[in-house]
């Protein structure tokens, strides 16, 4: 064969190769849906991937089908996981790139989050306005004053961002215009203009990082060592107020490495199965171990966990801690310093919880992200003791002929305190009415002297009486009615007003003797032995608790329910659990003391589960409880 012919043959082979390559690559994702050729990489995005839409032959159905199908196919085309994974893996090695869902690749295997202008804060180009700083100051002062009225102290703790502690790991292309971050501005403003107690953890953590790793490389948060150090700093600060609080030193502990796959930044890149998160178990001298908590299950936001009341404890102190993701494991190291401690995952304090717990101190932990927002809002009910109202709680409906006025008023928030509305004329109190929770109409006839004329001279005042502390172990009954609402979209809101879960799967809640959810787990419907084991484990731990167990199973079809909840419940000795548990919208309430089902409800909407008076095996009584569906 001549050289020319050979060259032509090579060219022909090249053409054939391209002809194979092109269709192969565009066909494979489709083909993998028909035959299983895809490697088993799962991204686990912690969200339900869009399901295949059903074709509705009406005009509107046909018109909306393409978009629905597009979003389905976007989530489900073949090799999606593998492609995302390999792509992120390659790019995650180059510092300075933004990989996956807004993750910045740093130096030496460190990663940073770029959302919420965090890297702008690193560069020092966020400038808070005087108004923003003033709002923060006022909000914090109101909060402190309100708590002081009940004799409660308030400590604000800021969990530093990773780049504050490890700025040298941020890629070099991000120049720092100034090292003065938003947090610095807030701290110096509060120092100059108020007496808010703010704990800045940056210095101790920076000092510690030379000895131990204190933050995760592939997660935004501190690791177990950083957490331990942060809590000890909090305790040090609290001991200024409560000398009985002691703290530990890291020097008394050894550390053991543990690995898991729950790095949030790794997940944002789709690499959590490739790049493990390294954490440390603290081992004390007597062999006591403090292992890091595992990955988060279900939606923890708004959940409250109550620890304590150890028998024979000489501690008297109580605390309520409001925290975000940084503080999710505070209880590990805090609970022993308190007689009772409550940990609630929320940015804004829950007044109901504070008034119920009546702690000695409220600790609020917030991450160094969006501080100007998270520090600028108080919950309803945070008013000074003699706040004047202008149309907020009282509204004049119908001033008439100088002889009659009608007021409409509503008690604020869900506070368990007595609330009053008073009417003042020319600065003098002429009448006062106790407010109920619901809206009330007050008619004020001619008893007011002088008769009502020009309304601008009238002011209303609102006040409440702080309740006495009445929580010395009185657990004979729930202090409130327990209410929970299941929404049509599958989310489940509220026991005692707190947001609970949003998962569309199988949700298990452990409710303590005071009506608060102390633990919960959410499972989606995909079958896995791992999940069954986890459920059984959870239930086993719950078995010896007091209180009750709430099971909520929300799903629209029963095809995919394969989680063996029934088996798990039987395995831990729960009696009388319904045989047919595959029904959707199933809710069951189980007394953990007697291991019996108190009430259950299943079937299609609408539904409502109501429990009247019920004597719990643990010795307390439910006054009333209702769970109902609610449209969104």
């Amino acid at each position, binding site marked *: 064969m001549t*050289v020319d012919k*050979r*060259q032509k043959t*090579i*060219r022909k082979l*090249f*053409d*054939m*190769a*391209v*002809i194979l*390559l*092109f*269709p192969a*690559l*565009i*066909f494979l994702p*489709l083909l993998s849906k028909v035959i299983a050729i895809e490697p088993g990489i799962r*991204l*686990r*995005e*912690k*969200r339900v991937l869009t399901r295949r839409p059903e074709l509705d032959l009406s005009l509107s159905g046909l*018109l909306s089908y*393409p978009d629905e*199908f*597009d979003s389905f*196919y*976007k*989530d489900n*085309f*073949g090799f*999606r996981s593998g*492609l*995302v994974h*390999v*792509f992120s893996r390659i790019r995650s090695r*180059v510092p*300075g*790139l933004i990989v*996956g*869902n807004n993750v910045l690749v740093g130096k030496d295997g460190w990663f940073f989050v770029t*959302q919420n202008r965090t890297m702008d804060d690193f*560069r020092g180009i966020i400038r808070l306005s005087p108004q923003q700083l003033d709002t923060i100051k006022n909000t914090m002062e109101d909060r402190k004053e309100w708590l002081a009225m009940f004799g409660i102290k308030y400590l604000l703790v800021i969990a530093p961002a990773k780049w504050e502690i490890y700025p040298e790991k941020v890629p070099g*292309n991000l*120049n720092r*215009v100034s090292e003065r971050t938003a947090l610095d501005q807030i701290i110096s403003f509060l120092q100059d203009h108020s007496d808010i107690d703010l704990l800045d953890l940056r210095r101790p953590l920076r000092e510690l990082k030379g000895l131990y790793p204190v933050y995760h490389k592939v997660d*935004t948060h501190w690791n177990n060592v950083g957490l331990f150090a942060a809590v000890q700093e909090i305790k040090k600060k609290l001991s200024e107020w409560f000398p009985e609080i002691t703290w530990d030193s890291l020097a008394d502990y050894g550390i053991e490495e543990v690995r898991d796959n729950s790095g*949030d930044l790794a*997940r*944002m890149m*789709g690499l959590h199965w490739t790049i493990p998160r390294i954490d440390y178990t603290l081992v004390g001298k007597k062999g006591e171990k403090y292992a890091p908590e595992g990955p*988060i299950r279900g939606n*923890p*936001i708004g959940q409250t966990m109550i620890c304590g009341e150890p028998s024979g404890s000489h501690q008297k102190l109580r605390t309520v801690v409001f925290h*975000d*993701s940084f503080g999710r494991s505070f209880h590990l190291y805090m609970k022993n310093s308190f007689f009772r401690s409550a940990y609630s*995952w929320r940015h804004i304090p829950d007044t109901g919880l504070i008034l119920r717990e009546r702690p000695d101190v409220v600790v609020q932990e917030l*991450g160094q*992200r969006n501080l100007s927002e998270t520090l600028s809002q108080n919950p309803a009910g945070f008013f000074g003791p003699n706040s004047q109202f202008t149309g907020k709680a009282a509204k004049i409906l119908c001033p008439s002929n100088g002889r009659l006025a009608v007021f409409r008023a509503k008690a604020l928030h869900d506070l368990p305190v007595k609330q009053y509305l008073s009417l003042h004329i020319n600065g003098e109190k002429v009448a006062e009415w106790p407010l109920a929770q619901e809206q009330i109409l007050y008619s004020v006839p001619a008893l007011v002297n002088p008769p009502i004329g020009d309304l601008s001279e009238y002011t209303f005042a609102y006040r409440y009486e702080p309740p006495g502390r009445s929580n010395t172990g009185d657990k004979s009954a729930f202090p409130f009615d327990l209410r929970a609402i299941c929404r049509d979209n599958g989310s489940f809101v509220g026991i005692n007003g707190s947001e609970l879960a949003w998962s569309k799967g199988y949700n298990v809640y452990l409710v303590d003797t005071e009506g608060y959810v102390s633990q919960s787990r959410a499972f989606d419907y995909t079958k896995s032995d791992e999940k069954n084991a986890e459920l059984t484990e959870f239930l086993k731990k719950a078995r010896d608790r007091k209180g009750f167990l709430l099971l909520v199973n929300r799903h629209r079809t029963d095809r995919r329910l394969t989680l063996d909840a029934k088996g798990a419940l039987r395995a831990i000795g729960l009696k009388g659990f319904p045989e047919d548990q595959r029904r959707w919208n199933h809710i069951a309430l189980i007394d953990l003391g007697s291991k019996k089902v108190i009430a259950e409800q299943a079937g299609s909407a609408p539904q409502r589960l109501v429990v009247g008076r019920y004597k719990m095996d643990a010795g307390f009584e439910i006054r009333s409880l209702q769970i109902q569906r609610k449209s969104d």
Partner: protein
Amino acid sequence: MTFLFYFLPVFLGFYFLFSAVSLIKTGKVSRFPGNLFLLFSSLFFYAWGEKLFVFVMLTSTLIDYICGLAISGHFGRKWKEEIITLEKDSPRTSRQKIALVVSVVTNLSILGFFKYFNFFVDSFNSAFATLRLEAWQFHDVMQVALPVGISFYTFQSMSYTIDVYRGNTPATKSLLDFASFVTMFPQLVAGPIIRYRDVACQLKERRVTIEDFSCGARRFIIGLGKKVIVADYLAVTVDKIFAVPGESLTTGLAWLGAIGFAIQLYFDFSGYSDMAIGLGRILGFRFLENFNYPYIARSLREYWTRWHISLANWFRDYLYFPLGGNRRPLPRVIFNLCVVFFLCGLWHGPSWTFVAWGMTHGVFLILERQGLEKWLKRLWVPLQHIYLLVLSSCIKMIFRSESIGQAWDMIKAMAGFARGDGSVYNVGSYLNPEFIAVFAVGVLGCLPIIPALNRRLSRWIGSRPRSAVVPLTTIHTLLEFSALALIFIWAIMWIANGTYNPFIYFRF
């Protein structure tokens, strides 16, 4: 996503399955079932994205088909009789004239209504507001949605009736052929604007060889890579730079934004064209080129022979020449150019910045015609290139900016009158190894360097001793193939990456 990994493989599979018999027999794709399947697929494709607007497209198609027949005078004759091209110089009957007017008016009305209705209402309202004639303003006017590709298919089908009228091409009897031509999905969304006379023969039957398929696939892959890897990537940074407030811009940053945008626009648009031309080639069509390295031009006039060629040709043949072109006295030529570029600007989008962009082109073309180009020709060649690059970058600022004011800020900063000190927004903070690499690829891709190198390499291999030619050719081919595969896979990965959206707790 659905297009690349669902529609396209299914379409290609069936297209070649249906055409298998004729392909094996004659090596050609025939009208049945080739065009039929193409037509239905295109309509499905368009209806998938644009829903009921598919009927707008069908209406325009049907009217132009009928007008085409009317112009050719085929009505009243036997259907089987062959349609012949009209004689170029013979006078046209009033019936033919009416049919042409109907076609042009229909298409322009469709385009005007869907694309410009709201724009004109808003413009009138703001004009009346300036004149303090608020009472004359229009209120509660309906909001018209813009169907995708309307600017392309109306121009395509209009070119058909005009060409029939002028005697450039015979009208077609086959509605199937004509509808396949207007609705053909590869170029429906973003061009190029194809003319009926260029593809008339291929609509009847077309040859698809292994070389065609391979060449088309390569072209598609390169287009996809241009769009996804370069244009979309640079767009992120360019958007950030254009969001920088005017008082913080630095000269370096403005230039980074300007060059970045020039590359982004070229790669985006020519990437689309490459994909369309490539897909067309796979199906057996040979569309004309739409871009020819516009940034190596040495004058704006030359630039317009290299940039969006199909649009420039359309305006030249159907607007500029009928207006008299440049054979008229000077004032008339200036007027012609102004009209053409006013409309060309408006064609790009219903906004005054586009009009300003078009008009600036018009002004500079007039200047070039009036001697600027002659003067330029005498300059050192690199200076001629710099003239074009600087000028087109500045004019592109108008294209990209939200307002004329923003464009002016950018141009001032580029000229060295930047107000920012570079402490907060500076070039360095936008650079990372990947950006630099993509930017470099972008700059290289704007120049005809890679094809030239490739040719030179082939020639060099050919000049080696006979024993070395075959191994060297093999290596060369393998390299080319690997580069293609890499581009394709990397582009697909970028697309997949865009769908990844995990739920993370720390946001709370």
